[in-house]
């Protein structure tokens, strides 16, 4: 390869995004290991699987980079329908854990179609909004968008997986806002959301555990051994970390299992306890860089479709980081939203890498 060619090639690769992702995912794997290594039977059980998920994720990202992201735009409808079918399948053949039916087994892997729905929705909405050149000034056009969001949203709520449903709404809002949503319509959406919340409470549509989580969020001290237990333990773990933390593998709240679901939903609390304010704020910094870098890629994209895809991915990550970390610190209600690249779990890892793949793809093709 000639020297000039090499520099040509290098210009297509966003090394900063790769570096941020690499740091995040390494940090995440280490934390998952620290959270689960006290297991008597197999200290490497979770780490091994998470590493495999990571490697698979890298493959997914690499695969996506090789395709032209604009290609997805043409296959939007099949993707959308395929995902809807999967979501429907979950309701019939999915298997249930913790009272929610979220997974379908595809042999070697338990797929969580609601995770896939996030990326599919991003691609779908980006195509829809870009086709209309960001022109969503009429309510009738907005309703078409709502309809597209509504179907997967409904199917996911039915699982029930309120957390992921909320992520879909966040993705939609982020993309709509950047597409130039009129403030009157923004107000209308806000009104609808308020009405929806009102109706949910009016007709008692929340399940008991969901209601309890809300009560605990509003008054954390109401039931410290029951519904408030997870939140209290999470705050104890984070708070006790102080400035420097107890050190990796030395957190007592993590190691003695006081901290619930510490490898998944509450993985941030492990960072808080073991690596303190320094480690936690470093992690927040990584997420900040990840998301702002994604928005920057969106701003540099070659077309509006690319911009909107980048905005969709950024919205997804921002919302998940805010709700997950906010939840562990008691400023967000408890929902089962995973922390990107950190929380243990295959589907979400692959989807996050898919997001990285899309972003790298948009960056690489920004000149066209």
């Amino acid at each position, binding site marked *: 390869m000639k020297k000039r060619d090499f520099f040509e090639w290098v210009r297509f690769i966003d090394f900063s995004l790769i570096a941020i992702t690499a740091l995040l995912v390494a940090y995440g794997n280490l934390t998952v290991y620290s959270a689960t290594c006290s297991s008597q039977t197999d200290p490497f059980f979770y780490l091994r699987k998470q590493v495999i998920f990571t490697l698979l994720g890298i493959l997914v990202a690499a695969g996506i980079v090789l395709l032209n992201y604009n290609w997805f735009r043409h296959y939007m409808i099949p993707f959308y329908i395929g995902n809807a079918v999967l979501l429907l399948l979950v309701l019939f053949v999915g298997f249930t854990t913790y009272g929610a039916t979220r997974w379908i087994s595809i042999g070697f892997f338990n797929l969580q179609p609601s995770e896939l729905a996030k990326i599919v929705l991003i691609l779908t909405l980006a195509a829809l909004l870009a086709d209309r050149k960001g022109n969503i000034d009429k309510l009738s056009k907005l309703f078409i968008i709502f309809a597209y969001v509504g179907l997967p949203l409904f199917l996911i709520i039915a699982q029930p997986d309120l957390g992921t449903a909320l992520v879909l709404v966040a993705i939609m809002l982020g993309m709509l806002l950047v597409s130039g949503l009129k403030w009157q319509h923004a107000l209308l959406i806000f009104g609808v959301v308020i009405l929806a919340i009102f109706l949910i409470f009016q007709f008692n549509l929340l399940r008991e555990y969901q209601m309890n989580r809300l009560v605990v969020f509003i008054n954390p001290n109401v039931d410290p051994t029951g519904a408030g237990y997870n939140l209290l333990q999470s705050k104890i773990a984070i*708070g006790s970390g102080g400035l420097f933390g107890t050190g990796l593998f030395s957190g*007592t709240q993590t190691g003695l299992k006081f901290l619930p679901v510490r490898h998944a939903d509450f993985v941030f609390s492990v960072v808080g306890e073991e690596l303190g304010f320094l480690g936690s704020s470093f992690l927040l910094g990584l997420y900040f860089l990840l998301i702002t870098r994604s928005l920057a890629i969106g701003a540099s994209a070659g077309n509006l479709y690319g911009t909107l895809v980048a905005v969709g991915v950024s919205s997804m990550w921002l919302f998940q980081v805010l709700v997950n970390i906010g939840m562990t610190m008691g400023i967000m209600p408890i929902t089962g939203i995973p922390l990107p690249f950190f929380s243990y779990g295959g589907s979400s890892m692959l989807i996050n890498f898919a997001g990285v793949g899309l972003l790298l793809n948009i960056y690489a093709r920004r*000149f066209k």
Partner: protein
Amino acid sequence: MVRLDDSTQKRLAIAGAVVTIVFSVLLGRLWTLQIIAGEKYTKMAESNRVRTISLSTSRGVIYDRNGEVLVDNRPSLVVAVTPSEVENEDVSFRLGKLLDMTSDEIKEKLEDKAVDPLKSRKVKYDIDENIAVYIKEHSADFSGVEIKVESVRNYSAPTTAAHVLGYLGEISGDELEHNKDSGYELGDLIGKSGIEKQYEEILRGIKGFQQLEVDASGKVVRILDENESVAGNNLQLTIDSSLQQATEKSLEEAIKVAQRDGHEDANAGAALVMDPNTGEILAMASYPTFDPSLFIGGFSSKQWADLNDKSSGFPLINRTMMCSYAPGSVFKPVTYLAGLMEGVVSYRSTFDCEGKWTGMGESWPRYCWNRAGHGRMNLSSGMSNSCNIVFYEIGYKLYKAGGEKLQKWAHEFNLGLRTGVDLPSETKGRVPDKAWKKKFNEEHPDYQAWVPGDTVNLAMGQGDLLTSQLQIANIYSAIANGGTVWKPHLGKKVLTAEGEEIHEFNREKVLDIPVPEDIIEKLQRDLRRVVVDGTAKRAFEGFSLEVAGKTGTSQVKGKDDFAWFACYAPLDNPRYVVVVLIEQGGHGGSVAAPAARRILAAAYDISSTGSLSVPDKSR
């Protein structure tokens, strides 16, 4: 290359601002939790992880002076219930049937506010082993119920020295507050009365602890720290348990005899035996009595109310030192000494007793108990016959001499102050004087003035004078030993759990009464005459031991007379001071003195115990 339009660029910049705000909020919250509140959460994390379990200790054994066990410990099978773990109402119903308790009784125990709501509450002690086995075998039907083995007090003889020993009970909120730094916890037993309370610190021992690291499921991961329990020290008392039993028996008999003889309100009394040379209390009995073992496991509120109801006669009260009484004629030796020492009378003084005394004027007549009159009396015969005229006269002369001389002499014997006996809740008694009367009748100006009759009453041991039985024992002890008031005490030795002596309670002098030896000797002689040919003659007829003492029959408004007898023996080398009081028992010479004789007979193993009651009309 297609450039984005300006408005999209602008909106992306707004999105960037939103991202910045979100992260600022998260970072701010992180700072609050970790840096500002970090210490609080560190403590909470520690309390999550570290469980401190206290290890039980065994309470010290209490012995009598001869090394006989009065109370030690035994294991007891206890049913304990943790209310938060009880799954349904049936459990208490089943438990009630099994333990023969009503559901209300069980409910009361379970709702006990004094116990930590998350801890188990002891529902019943000393359950049958079969019941314990049954509950264990049917544990599924008894959620929240456990069988524990607790160490409880074991009394050698159920009611012997009950008032001396006292009883234990679960520590109350107030007691916990008072002993904050002493390592007590809710549910701990603490001495509530008597020696158990007085010497709590000696007896209780030090509870050990184990600091355990536990995981979230409460499983112990490792022991962080451990401190073994230290057993409580043993305590030897000055009580002689066989004399104590004899004293209790004699007291009860005397009360029964008083009832039989027509004093049907006689239902309470007290008796004391003290060593006049040291202040050691050899026997201390109060009637009615109680069984301290009933306190094991605590009382239901009804049982407690019964014990404190008037009809019960208040058995928990130790009448030897918690109550004060008008001493009546047993106080006369003080008047006798006051008269001599202040020079208002002498041994040559004579008194004419015609049964009636008008020393304070015809309109204020006083009478002798012997309405026929004793004839010509002197100090000595006045004492032996308990002639009231003689003491009215002395009292009146002391009044006229001014300066509250009689009160001064009461104070010389430490009356009006606590004796300092090592038991809680001692009464001070009361020596009335001008200042006291004025203050006492603050609301009734007509009654504030101290009148001659007040001093005359005081001379008789009546009026507003109040003394505890123990204070009377102090007076006779000082007379017997030649003038020293020793502090009455029950503690003799402190021993370690292994029996090694670590402390001895020495006798403690309270004061010497400023009376020359020859005057005390004359008083001793006159008190001997009371027994030889005076008011206690009949009670001690044919008794081989030389006893000196004084009868007393004190009058209490609205009640039958209180019978007193205070004495010491043997005359030459006194070893025992005995004081007997029968509330509403009639005359001292007729029931109290015979009881004292029986107590002395037991002390010396004398078979001639005399009659249970003899005639006596003196006051």
